[in-house]
Structure formats: C-alpha cells, structure tokens
C-alpha cells in the first residue's frame, strides 16, 4: 500500500513535469513569433501594420477569454485527431498548448515593450535591417524579462495541467482528483498539492536566480 502510493506519486510528478515542460516548449515555439508580430506591427512598431496587428490580437484575445475547462472539453475532438486518445498526459498537451500559446504571446509582447525605444532607434540609425533589429537588438535586450515571463508561464501551465485531471488528464492533478476528491483520501490530496506547490516554487526560484545571473543591468 505505502509502496504503491509512493510509486503513484512518483509517476504523477513525472507526468506533471513532462506535460508542463513539453507544453511550455511548444507554447513558446508558437507564442514567441506571435508576440514578435504583435510588437512589430504595433502603431509604434518597426513594421507597423494595422490589419495584421488587429487580427493577431483578436484571435489571441478570443482564445484567452475562453475558460480553460471549457477549452479543454471543446478541444476533445481535436485532441483525438492529433494524439489518438483523449486520456492521459499526451492528450493533455493539446489543450495546454492551445491555452498557453496566446498567453505566452502576450507575455512576450509585454517583455519586448520594455526594450528602450532609444536603443531601437540607435540600431535603426546604424543601418540595421528590420530582421537584425528583432534578432540582434530587441530579443537579446528583452532576454531577462522574457525569462522571467517563462517562469510565470511554467507555473501557470502547471496549474492548468492539474486542472486537466478533471477530464482524464494525467499527472498530479489526476491523482488529487481521483483519490482526494472522489475517494475522500484527504492525505493523498494534501501530498499532491504540496508537490505541486513545491514544483512551482522550484521553477520560480531557479528561474529568478538564473535571470539575476544573466541580466547585465543589475550590476
């Protein structure tokens, strides 16, 4: 019994980490370009474009305004097509990515907005192309802020992944719900929640430590 429980929790932690990290990664692959598009097509941006800015922003806002649990259910058919099943850790990644990518896009956009406009202007004056301004100035200058954003994104996605336990997702969330909620095993629920808190705490601390080390403005 004890051994089985430990095994179960270990599995839960592994699954949660797997879902969270893979989803965060894919969400960033989609979210970073979207965030860059939002930033550069803005009225004050280097490739001002009202139409692209409006539609990108509108789609992002639309997805972001759907509550995650509803998104989770609504996406079940899509999940079945992509993963082949709607249960387990892999299946949870699909709605996690869909929910997180627009959120990541907004986080990226706001990090890029922190870059001093004078520096962008100086880069322009030196004859940089738009692509060079994005890849050599804006993103490197925003790097510390982007990484802080990433630690926030990981924590948020971790929270979402736990919620996915309600509809057959895997990980610690599923354990908390199956044992703690349906079978009234309060101790199991408390332990899983403690693990979730611990993981969030770890990512947050490690992320901030890392950012402090690489941010050249702080010395």
């Amino acid at each position, binding site marked *: 019994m004890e051994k089985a429980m430990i095994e179960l929790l270990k599995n839960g932690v592994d699954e949660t980490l797997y879902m969270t990290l893979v989803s965060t990664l894919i969400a960033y692959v989609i979210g970073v370009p979207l965030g860059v598009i939002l930033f550069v097509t803005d009225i004050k941006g280097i490739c001002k474009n009202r139409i692209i800015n409006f539609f990108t922003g509108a789609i992002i806002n639309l997805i972001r305004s759907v509550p995650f649990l509803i998104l989770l259910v609504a996406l079940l058919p899509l999940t079945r097509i992509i993963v082949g099943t709607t249960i387990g850790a892999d299946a949870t990644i699909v709605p996690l990515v869909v929910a997180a990518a627009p959120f990541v896009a907004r986080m990226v956009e706001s990090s890029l907005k922190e870059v*001093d406009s*004078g*520096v962008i*202007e*100086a*880069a*322009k*004056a*030196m*004859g*940089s*192309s738009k692509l*060079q301004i994005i890849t*050599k*100035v804006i993103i*490197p*200058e925003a*790097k*510390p802020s982007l990484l802080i954003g990433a630690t926030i994104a990981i924590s948020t996605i971790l929270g979402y992944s736990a919620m996915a336990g309600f509809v057959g997702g895997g990980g610690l969330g599923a354990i908390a719900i199956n044992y703690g909620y349906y079978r009234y095993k309060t101790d199991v629920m408390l332990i899983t929640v403690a693990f979730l808190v611990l993981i969030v705490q770890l990512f947050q601390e490690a992320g901030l430590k890392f950012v402090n080390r690489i*941010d*050249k*403005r*702080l*010395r």
Partner: protein
Amino acid sequence: MIRFENVSKKYISGKNEVVAVDNVNLEIGKGEIFGIIGFSGAGKSTLVRHINLLEHPTEGNIYFDNVNLTNAGEKELRKYRQRIGMIFQQFNLLAQRNVVGNIAYPLEIAGIKKKDRLKRVDELLQLVGLEDKKKAYPSQLSGGQKQRVAIARALATNPDVLLCDEATSALDPITTRSILSLLKEINEKLGVTIVIITHEMKVVEQICDKVAVMSGGVIEETGTVKEVFLKPKSLTARRLILPDDNINIHLNENEMFSEKGGDVNGKGNDRTA
C-alpha cells in the same frame, strides 16, 4: 555635403497639425562642426533626424554629396546610414552587451568578419581612451564613459558625418568638456563632419564653426559662431545668447515659480542655459 532644400515636416495628430520643421534650407559643409541651437520644441531633433532619414520630409528634398536621398529605398538607406554615425543624450547603448559587443554591433550588421571586427574595436577603444573597460557592461560605466562607448560605436564604420543630439546634456561640465575635446579631435584627425544639437551656448562656443538658430521649426539665422554670437540678429538668438536686460526679468519670474514647486523648471533651465 548635406543640403536641405525647402524641407518641411508636419505631424498630424487628430485634428491638430504640428509643423515641426518649416521650409528649411540649410547647407552643411564637409569637415565643419555645425551647431544647431534653439529652445525646447524648436524642432532641432526632428531636423537632424532628417539627415539620416529617420524622419522623412513631408515636403522638400535632402541631398547628401548632391545625391537626392528623399525617395531612396530601404536598402539604399541602410547603406547610407552606415556613413552617418549618431549619438544621443541617453547614450542608447545595448544594456545586455559589453563595451566590445556594443562597438562591434555596427560592424556586425555591416557583415564584417569577427577577426576584423575585434581589430577595429581595439583601434576605436584606443581613440576614445577606454582600453581598460573592454569587458564592462553599460551599467558599470559612468555617463562620460558611456558616451565614449557611444562615440566609438558611431565611428566604427568610418562614417563621414557624426550627428550629436544633446550628447553632453546629461553630463557634468568637466565631463562635457572632455567629450567635446574628443569630438574636436575626431573632427580634426579623421575629417568627420559633426552636427551638434545643443541648448548649451558653451558647447557652441567651445567647438562649433557654424551655428543655426532654430525656433518654431524655422531656421531664424545661420552664420559663423563669431557672427551670430557677436551680432545676433533674430530674437531667439538674442534670448539664447545675451544674458542681460529684459531676459533677466523672465529669469526672476521663473525662479519665483520654481519656489512654489511649479512645472517651470524646464523653461527656467532653457533660459539660463
């Protein structure tokens, strides 16, 4: 070398139209140190940003070595901008790059090989006297040192022209003096034409050959520093240059307001400068 022909720049915001530059004709000769003075909002920055086409004129033409650049394409402009360095009041250095990385940036985008870049950076560091700060990041430098890095960066691609927008306004008088003598040295040694925007008359006195006085988007007068300083013709020039008479009355008014903690500090500074 640089010629403005009937250049105007209008900004439209809502129903308001701001004429930031109003029908300016101006010629800046090769090798000159050319000062542009005027009160805040006169249009100095806007005018100078036309030289490297960071702003495009609403009307008129801009010539560089008799080539009309007003309608140049993006690619042509980028090549051209590499021939014009620019430095700013707020330095605008890349905070996440060290001194070497900052100075190497324009060389990087010009496609110069790493080995040649580093060699050039060393030459520039020597020119601005910062050999011992190679690995430092901007946050570890003083204002004067940051401006030296900015100057080195602006000169990296061997430009013909250096634009300075209030480049010494954030520095104390002694640092200002040392930056100005560096600019003078660059002008004399390398033959770089320098355009300086400033509201500090001392800057003009110390290094400029010629000066243009600007107000309300209009150039009110141009001439050698001697001409303009000894016999200022326009009202703006007199208000900027002459410290006495009726100007003192304004000064006192401002001081009274300042004591009440009003928002006249900016104005007061402009007048006293």
